[in-house]
């Protein structure tokens, strides 16, 4: 099947600042794709370029088989966008804003709109100027998900939502996925991506540094093992691919590089394993793997 989004070597500069430095992003039709990175990495710039609000300086962008700059209007009928920082017209009510935005896209599904309002527990009769940040976010979410479209572009859509609403949001995303729709979900909240995404792309300083399914990415990094053995694991530190060894009585914990995992498990077996727990790397660790040197640099400066 055709990919919903494909960028090749996409670049975008604002004056001296290179916001996008060759982004290669592929989102397959029908998947929930996590777009991860800290603030300022280029997530929103990529989103806006995908929407044709900004024009890329170089590279290729293809969205739903079209050019987002040239075919903006016809493509926008087939997608819904939820910005991270929602600005609304202060003198319109939330209900009016939802209807207006839906109408500008080409129509609202009434029953779906009302059902979403109820699920997100939003009062549509208040003026937008009276809404809190979380409620403005809900307006954008209801307006976005009330649209029956092929692609949902969600730019950090959950900032300001409380945990209850977060779970409503996750349910809704799962529903659109079951319905065969594509979702690009940008976030810096890793647990959110872990809960929802089939595949993720990690962006750093305007480049995609990692892309793939969570399973794929986990191969790239380390697994944590916690082991109790009948015979002590002497000289473990010297084994290839082993780091961060900690001993606590007869229990030993350490992390293993993905490509040494098989050999380590085999060798550990010779020491009479009593108990073994293994933790796959969390997205957090994947993330730190790519941003670790930035953090190291920061720490060094602070120190």
């Amino acid at each position: 099947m055709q990919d919903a989004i494909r960028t090749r070597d996409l670049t975008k500069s604002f004056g001296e600042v290179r916001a996008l430095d060759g982004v290669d992003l592929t989102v397959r039709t029908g998947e929930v794709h996590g777009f991860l990175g800290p603030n300022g990495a280029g997530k929103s710039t990529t989103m806006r370029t995908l929407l044709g609000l900004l024009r890329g300086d170089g590279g290729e962008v293809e969205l739903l088989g079209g050019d987002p700059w040239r075919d903006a209007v016809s493509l926008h009928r087939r997608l819904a966008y939820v910005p991270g920082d929602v600005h609304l017209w202060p003198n319109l009510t939330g209900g009016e804003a939802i209807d207006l935005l839906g109408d500008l896209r080409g129509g609202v599904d009434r029953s779906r709109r009302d059902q979403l309002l109820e699920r997100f527990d939003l009062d549509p009769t208040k003026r937008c100027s009276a809404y809190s940040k979380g409620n403005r976010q809900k307006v954008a979410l209801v307006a976005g998900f009330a649209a029956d479209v092929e692609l949902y572009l969600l730019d950090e859509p959950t900032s300001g939502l409380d945990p209850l609403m977060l779970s409503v949001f996750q349910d809704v995303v799962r529903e659109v996925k079951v319905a065969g729709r594509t979702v690009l979900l940008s976030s810096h909240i890793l647990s959110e991506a872990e809960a929802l995404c089939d595949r993720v792309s990690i962006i750093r300083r305007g480049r995609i540094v990692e892309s793939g399914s969570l399973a794929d990415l986990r191969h790239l990094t380390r697994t944590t093992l916690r082991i109790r053995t009948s015979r002590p694991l002497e000289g473990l530190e010297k084994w290839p691919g082993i780091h961060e060894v900690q001993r606590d009585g007869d229990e030993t914990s350490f992390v293993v590089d993905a490509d040494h995992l098989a050999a380590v498990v085999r060798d550990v077996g010779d020491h009479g394993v009593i108990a073994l727990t293994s933790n796959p790397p969390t997205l957090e660790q994947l993330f730190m793997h790519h941003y670790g040197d930035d953090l190291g640099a920061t720490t060094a400066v602070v120190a």
Partner: protein
Amino acid sequence: MSAPTVPDTTRRSARPRVGGTHLTGLARLLRLALRRDRLVLSAWVVGIGVIGVSSVGGVTQRFASEAERTSAAAFSADNPISRVFNGPAGGADLGALAFTESFVILAVLVAVMAIQAVVRHTRAEEDAGRAELLGSAAVGRHARLVTAWVVAAIACSTAGLVYTATMLGSGLAPAGSLAAGAALAAVGLVFAGVATVTAQAFSSARAATGAGVAALGGAFLLRAVGDLGGEVADGGTVLVSAWPSWLSPLGWGQQVRPFLDDRWWVVVVAVLASAALVAAAAVLSARRDLGVGILPARRGPDRAPRSLRGVFGLAWRLQRGTLLAWGIGLSIIGTSFGAVGEGVEELLAENQELADVLASAAPGSSPTDTFFAFTMTLLGIAVGAFVVQSLLRLRGEEAGGRLEPVLASAVSRVRWMASHLVIAIAGSAVLLLVVGVTTGAAYIAASGADTSAMGGIVGAALTQIPAAWVLGGLTVLAFAVVPRWTAAVGWSAVGFTFVVGQLGDALDLPQAVGNLSPFTHIPAMPAVDPDPLPLLVLSAVAVVSTLVGVAILRRRDLAIAA
């Protein structure tokens, strides 16, 4: 356990004061507010000062003899238009003439400045969420409210001092000059107090400012009624206002009567009223929560009405209030200009300066026609200001982040711009038609002139349309090319055309500079026959600059904060 190692003296000074007063933090808040406002308030005071200098200077240079002054004061005391717009005449003293002619406009400006300053530091801060941050710090309950009022008081007093200095500079008596400055500051102070109350009552900055300005409008009307019903005294040179003037804070300023009897006790009344209003606001403020008003925020419809569907519906919703306000304002001005049309010849006999200006505009035509040609230029520039203001919405939507979701839906940039352009273009035509009809109707009703006069006046109003559109085209071009400077370019253009149109002769501007204003090229109907060529050229300039702006906007990135 670790405390005793700290020296006693530093402990005492570092310990936060328990309790504190309702005004804790006032000094620091005041410094912050003055720092934030230094540009905007300076601009206001300078602007008010410039108008004061030109107005006072115009009067003091105009009258040479005692007889001229007496006749001018008698005319001013008797003439209804003069009573409504300038207020009560205060005798034949040169200072009194200068005060009467300059005070109303200055007082209105000072009041607007004060209202805006107070709302900016109270309700607008709550809207922006900054008040919450301050409220969590060691700041007294009423410190923000009083800070806002003090900032406004400082600005009003400065404007008053500038007014006094202007009068002293024109050689007027020190006692009267001082009283005049105090009267100006006092009016501002009362409206600062009014705004502290509206900021508590309404739950948005827009509504709070709107209510303050509405109160100012009411004050103007009250004193207009009181002055119209006043009685002439003291040999016909003094107008004693009727009681409604005493209900109006604007009227209080005039009742100080500088250069006549310098009634300082009226200034005291105004200051006390302002203090009472602040006290009332403090009581209201203590009875409400942060972020909400005493008057509950109105609920609205849970569904969009049919009229809001689509991008044109949105533009109309965003612009209709502005258009309506302009329509009402221009109708009132048009009606009053029309009503004075008959008295122009009489007025010109009194005012040689104005007569010269009018005569130079269209030599050889009747004074009334020349007067209407002159006022239609002025009103054309006002409608140009409407065009600029409504097109600045384009930038407002973009900068406010509200354009992003619109363009992310199935709306093209051209369609979005067209939605606002239609309102600016059609709105300006409608407004000028309203101006022409109200002016013409009031003229015919007041003077009993033949109804055929309507055609000439409406025609004169409508010929302004292309020039107003040129200002719009420039604004669109600025929005496309230098979006962050759209407002600066648009308002500078309006200001420039106003200076050229109103003060061009007085300032002796070179013709080349004057020609840069599109209104210079509009034929001075009804004094002269219309020449279609300049109208066509101006229309072409407006259309081309708008289209170029739209074409550029299609290609540029959205200028939004990252």
